């Protein structure tokens, strides 16, 4: 009986990868545990071991093939007496069937879903940016690459800047964000720490007081809860408590928010948590250009910065200007779409839902203005107020919990400063008020969706 060898998912968010190399050829005998191939994703290159034994009858996907979807058959193992060609043919036939029915191989969790973020659909066009001079050459790059470039450029410019965190050096970053930095800057400036968040957060804060400019990578911000005392009680407050004598110029960066199927302890959005704290700056970029420009500003500043990234966005590509020195100021929102009927306000991965919703609304004849806050502290509420005075309606979109959310704050600001311009109550579209469940269907439901954004717009426009 022939056995299919399927393209493996090597991480919770992997959807596809490159079959970089076959270590075996057709006709070879394979035992369980043999490394038969190397699979490359945007995050890492991994060895792929056989789980069954037999003879490699047929290679279905040639080495070097890019964009091989998870669960695609890549080879067939046959037993003695079987014909390789027959086995391969039967596998292909079987797969043609399952694909059509959508059964057998369920789509990996919530990704590649029209109603949610993720997927590798082409990124929406970045709107004209007044900060970018006309005629600037643009280069497409992923958010991951943009973050790396920002760090590398600032490390070249300032000897005091260094990167510290778990697996940032030799492993090249748990999410491959720091790839190549160890090679360029050496072990003095790209430092693997023990798994000791409270310790290295306090240590980096002390190093900043001592005159250095640390960038601390939290593998994810969930782990920063071990260290939140040092972030809030020391980093954020020292400038004030010292009467302005001492700054703590440290950047805490890493993934925040839900990834895919990592459940309650690894899936939460920290935007509202940190935006609450005076003394911190909080950035949560969506596009690669903003990730780069904001991170450069963060590293240069005197203020401790919480820089919230998103695992699902790391692999997304956007146009980034090729400028020698591209830094984006904090506290300035970006208008992604101009519109006249409703203002949609979001940030970070929330922009995925928001932009998709705006596109659908446009098809239905509703003109939505889309604002990406980009930084939550300082927050460009002036841009939101200005827009609402034009559209008279507002919906906020975020993945975080509803109580004490960023949307709640915007609602309050609009009530106080644009009450007479509002034609409908502001609606906050948020994640559900529950710990993140593991089951795929529940997780999808716990987050927000394009449909929920559309429904909120229907309500505020009384349609």
């Amino acid at each position: 009986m022939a056995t299919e060898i399927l393209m493996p998912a090597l991480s919770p968010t992997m959807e596809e990868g490159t079959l970089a190399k076959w270590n075996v050829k057709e006709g070879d005998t394979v035992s369980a545990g043999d490394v038969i191939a190397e699979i490359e994703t945007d995050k890492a290159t991994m060895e792929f071991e056989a789980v069954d034994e037999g003879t490699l009858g047929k290679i279905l996907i040639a080495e070097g093939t890019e964009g091989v979807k998870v669960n695609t058959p890549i080879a067939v193992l046959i037993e003695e007496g079987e014909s390789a060609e027959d086995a391969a043919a039967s596998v292909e036939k079987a797969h043609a069937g399952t694909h059509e029915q959508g059964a057998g191989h369920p789509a990996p969790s919530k990704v590649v879903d029209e109603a949610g973020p993720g997927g590798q659909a082409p990124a929406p066009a970045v709107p004209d940016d007044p900060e970018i001079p006309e005629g600037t050459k643009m280069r497409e790059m992923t958010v991951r690459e943009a973050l790396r470039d920002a760090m590398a450029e600032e490390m070249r410019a300032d000897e005091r800047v260094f990167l510290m965190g778990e697996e940032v050096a030799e492993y090249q970053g748990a999410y491959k964000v720091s790839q190549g930095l160890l090679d360029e800057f050496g072990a003095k400036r790209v430092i693997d720490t023990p798994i000791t968040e409270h310790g290295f957060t306090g240590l980096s804060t002390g190093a900043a007081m001592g005159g250095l400019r640390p960038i601390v990578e939290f593998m994810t911000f969930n782990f920063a809860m071990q260290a939140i005392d040092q972030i809030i009680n020391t980093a954020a407050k020292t400038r004030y408590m010292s009467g302005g004598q001492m700054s703590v110029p440290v950047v805490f960066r890493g993934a925040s928010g839900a990834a895919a199927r990592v459940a309650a302890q690894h899936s939460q959005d920290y935007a509202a948590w940190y935006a609450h704290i005076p003394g911190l700056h909080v950035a949560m970029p969506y596009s690669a250009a903003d990730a780069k420009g904001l991170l450069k500003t963060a590293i240069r500043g005197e203020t401790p910065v919480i820089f919230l990234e998103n695992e699902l966005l790391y692999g997304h590509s956007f146009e980034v200007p090729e400028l020698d020195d591209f830094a984006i100021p904090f506290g300035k929102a970006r208008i992604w779409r101009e519109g006249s009927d409703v203002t949609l306000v979001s940030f970070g991965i929330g922009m995925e839902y928001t932009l998709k919703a705006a596109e659908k609304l446009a098809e239905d004849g509703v003109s939505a203005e889309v604002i990406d806050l980009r930084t939550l502290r300082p927050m460009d509420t002036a841009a939101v107020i200005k827009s609402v005075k034009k559209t008279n309606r507002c919906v906020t979109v975020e993945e975080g919990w509803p109580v004490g959310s960023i949307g709640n704050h915007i609602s309050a600001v609009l009530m106080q400063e644009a009450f007479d311009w509002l034609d409908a109550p502001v609606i906050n579209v948020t994640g559900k008020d529950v710990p993140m469940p593991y089951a795929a269907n529940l997780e999808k439901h716990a987050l927000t969706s394009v449909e929920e954004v559309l429904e909120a717009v229907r309500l505020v426009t009384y349609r």
Partner: protein
Amino acid sequence: MATAKSKKKSNTSKEDLLHYYREMLLIRRFEEKAGQLYGMGLIGGFCHLYIGQEAVVVGLEAAAEEGDKRVTSYRDHGHMLAAGMDPKGVMAELTGREGGYSKGKGGSMHMFSVEKHFYGGHGIVAAQVPIGTGLAFADKYNENGRVTFTYFGDGAVNQGQVYEAFNMASLWKLPVIYVIENNQYAMGTSVGRSSSTPEFYTRGEAFGIPGEAVDGMDVLAVKEAGERAIAHCREGNGPYILEMKTYRYRGHSMSDPAKYRTREEVQKVRETQDAIEHVRELLLQGKHADEDELKAIDKEIKAIVNEAADFARESPEPSLDELWTDIYA
């Protein structure tokens, strides 16, 4: 409690002994005055006095060099005075006035002086331990040969982040001296009731950090131990632990009911172990000074402290605009 004090210190000069006497006395009189101002309602909030422990900071400062750094907990007035910070600025911070080191915005527990390399004044027990380790990290990064004194108490020594810091300091050979001021009580809980192993100088063994117990009531012993620790750090051998066996005469803070120890216990230490009395005896026995000279010093110190108290009373409260400054650069 500590062993008998060094009686024969003929090699300590008159100048040094007088310096230690003066420095320790300044801390004690300053703290007594702070206690008085607290009682008058001029100092608010929490106020933790250093009376009894003076030899620790004075001895270590005597071993330190210009540019070395120090960081400590909220029982920090003595550390600031020993580091050379102005008593007026410290006292005015205690009263929450514009002339304080933090313009009145930090208070007793949160004071800093970049000029004197004093990095706080931290209100969360043990938070200063990774911070001091980070200061040492910066010194190693900058290859400047400096060391950082990271002070913490017998209460802090049971916090997890202490050991996270120990591990990294030893792993990366950071020039940090961990000074455990064991005054025997974490607030109201004695070492015996809080710590499975009371030999705190051995707490670095699992990380390969050498340590020694020191009579923290003997300023000469403290200085010598400090010199050993500094040499160890400056030679690039990584961190070092000094457990200072000391004693706090006053309560944990001003509102301490002192139900956890007897009056006799405190009295006995005062009578037999007092750090200032020790140096006073050395000065008199060695004929380095007579009673009149010491009285003159007492008077001088009293004047400095009174001046600080007057300044702290007269300095205006910060302007209301200060509420909104120093949050962002």
